[in-house]
């Protein structure tokens, strides 16, 4: 069974017929060809597939495409090219192997959208749904400080 779905991805309209339980993650990576969004666990634990759904951070592996109908999705590819998080993550040690980085940047973007100058405890909490096995998180905190104009 498939159902018709229409939604916006990074500002462009997408429409098609999908099995209702098909994961948003698969539609993004497959039909939309947006491979910045990664699959790390497939069960909502690692945050590598994090995207914004109407400005709310979600794990796209847990979102059935039926729930996306009529809504707006932003992936890493849809962030403004000059989002300060990009340069900050690259410069401060916020990325190592890079597989968690797109999801981590989306979580950081969601945080900064809510809070212009987060302190460390806000940052820790906002990132606690995104696992990084390389950095020990320190470089990621530094990136968020830098991108929010608080120095490294």
């Amino acid at each position, binding site marked *: 069974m498939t159902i018709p779905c229409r939604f916006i991805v990074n500002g462009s309209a997408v429409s098609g017929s999908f099995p209702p339980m098909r994961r948003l993650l698969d539609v993004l990576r497959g039909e939309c060809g947006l491979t910045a969004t990664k699959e790390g666990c497939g069960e909502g634990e690692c945050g590598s597939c994090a995207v914004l759904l109407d400005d709310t951070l979600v794990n796209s592996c847990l979102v059935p495409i039926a729930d996306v109908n009529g809504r707006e999705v932003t992936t*890493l590819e849809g962030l403004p090219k000059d989002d300060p998080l990009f340069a900050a993550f690259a410069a401060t040690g916020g990325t190592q192997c890079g597989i968690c980085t*797109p999801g981590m940047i989306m979580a950081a973007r969601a945080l900064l959208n809510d809070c212009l100058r987060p302190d460390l405890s806000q940052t820790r909490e906002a990132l606690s749904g995104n696992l990084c096995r*390389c950095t020990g998180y320190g470089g990621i905190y530094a990136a968020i400080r830098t991108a929010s104009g608080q120095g490294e």
Partner: protein
Amino acid sequence: MYTSMHNDSRFGTTPLKDAPLRKDGMEKVRGTARYVADITYPGMLHAVTARTRLPGGTIASITFDDHVPWSEYVVVTARDIPGINAVKMIETDQPVLVETHYRHAGEPVVLIAHPDPQALADALAAVHIDERPYAKPPVFAIEEALRADTRRIAADNVYRDYLMEKGSVMDAEKESCQVFEAEYHTGAQEHLYIEPQGMMARMEGGILTVEGSLQCPYYVHAALMYATGLPEERVRVLQCATGGAFGGKEEYPSHIACHAALVTMKAGGRPVALIYGRGEDMAVTPKRHPSRSRVRLGASRDGRLRFIDIDFVIDGGAYLTLSPVVLSRGVIHAAGPYRCDNVRVRARAVATNHPPFGAFRGFGAPQSIFALEAALDELARMLEMEPDVLRRRNVLAPGDISPAGQRIEGPLDMQRVIGQALEACDYHAKVEAYRQWNAQKGAIRKGIGLATFYHGAGFTGNGELALRSRAGLRVGADGLVEILTSTTEMGQGMQTTLSGIVAEALRIPYEGVAVARPDTRDVPNSGPTVASRTCMVVGAILARAADDLIARLRADAALPSVYGYGEFRDACARLHAAGGVTTIIADYRHPAGNEWDESVFQGSPYASFAWACYVAEVEVDAVTGETRIVDFTAVQEVGRVVHATVAAGQIEGGVVQGIGYALFEDVRFGADGQMANNRITNYIIPTSADIPPIRVLFLESRHGAGPGGAAGIGELPMDGPAPAIINAINAALGTEIRHVPAMPEHILAAMDRRSA
């Protein structure tokens, strides 16, 4: 010396050196780096693996249900293997696909592929492997494996039995000394790289081409030749962007590569993606070896170590894989960086019916160092001596001979390393303050603990000699210098570090150096990307290649003796125009005087060590057993920091993995011997909410064998956190916790034992 304090709540205290941007940074933050799961080819197949379920046995038959349209599928079994049915590693005891006999649950038996990944689950369920158990029950525990009456998995169930001996423990015991004796255990640890393993294989112009997530392209290349029977020139291996590895993508990628290759060969060369889901990855791929150490320490009343006597055993699992070399590193690090005339370390790797354990950052050293460092704190308590004083009294200094018989060369100064660590965290004041605090007997107890240790860089013993690594440089007409190496980037910053080394050696800007993609058709064999060897060993080879390149440009392209970047580029253009040789390959050179006798474990096991003192501060809830690490200090003497951000990232990331090893990461095995909690939901690694401020300080005495005096640092930070944390918990509670991970229930049980 400088400090990195990214993690510190005091914002703005990060005096990192001016470090150039990491080479792979932009593609990773933009999400354009191509990992294996991001690659698609027209007409590609997706493959899955049917596996054994019993912990060892024989396969009587394999049947395929009729309701599946099998003609649409590609099905591969052991009979389809054109070469030898073994995964080439140290030995060849492990089959690529099981034909009859097998040793553990989760061994691959049948591969199934289909263009539609949705069509695989039903087909997999329609494959029936009729398994027959062996008569004797499976063996999962080290002591069971060593008993004579249990199931034999390998000869005597002992893969290797090593002895490192110096002086005479027996004679030392006859002198009057205080003896402390205890047994320590460490659990398995899952790498949990965030990108699961995967490979893509295809035939391209008669050449088997395999690309994927891997650390060691030439290991995969050798395994493919062995299993397919194809000659060297018809096998090509490329690395994709690799989403973390930590040792976990050292040996297992060879298995997946062989599987994907067999499918593509049977499918007429069609591209085949074999990508593991998280659950499969965690259930079947290797983990850190569990260990058991019996430690006996003899010391004079004033705390001088008279003897160190250790019986160290690791669980190798069902096949040999890399256990011999994990074991040898464990042996050499077991007696720590201490002065002691009488040392005996007996070490064995045993066979069990667990899936094989394998390489994981630290490679045997975290296990043996944990046991020694935890025992030293208990010895200090017995001697009524402060743990830092006991260590300062025994730690190696230049001129001393290490337990393995290596003469320690200056200018490194371990006393200074310890001093910096204690000062940075205000150790002595905290010891006193926490004693007073704990005397109140409130619900929260506080403790501070330390560990001192070193970690050898490069392959153990004569390993680097045997590898005979090669790496090179290729210069373009535009002056761009490309590094040619099979060393892989897996997040550790190899592209950045090696580019910095080459730029420095060539005296050109960092931006003028790039790293060629690891591709066995294009890059020489620089050995595997393991063992903290990249900066020190491969970096040194590349620095020599750079010298050769300058000599070539001077001789053949009139490069002036003093040159700017413009003149360098002009010379490169002239070299190209003249049709000169534009690729330089250099070979490994063994440091003079570094001899090693593997038969007695004496000599110089490593060209250099990184030295460290780590301090952990904890708060333990005496009611719930929950431990919170409130502060962590990591001071290391690394010879030289080549790239500040990369080096700090290695230490911080390693410390956090070590925190997980100490407190959270509990691999539970099911009755079949496989990891039962094989999900991120129930195998817990540290999140950003779990970690303390981590203070990272480097000392740079330039003592290392690498460029500019650098030693290797990749594995070092894995060694110290577990003992420092356990020592802090034991200090807080007065307990005798002797294993990791120390989960709340273990801590409560240890408190009960203390009360009893």
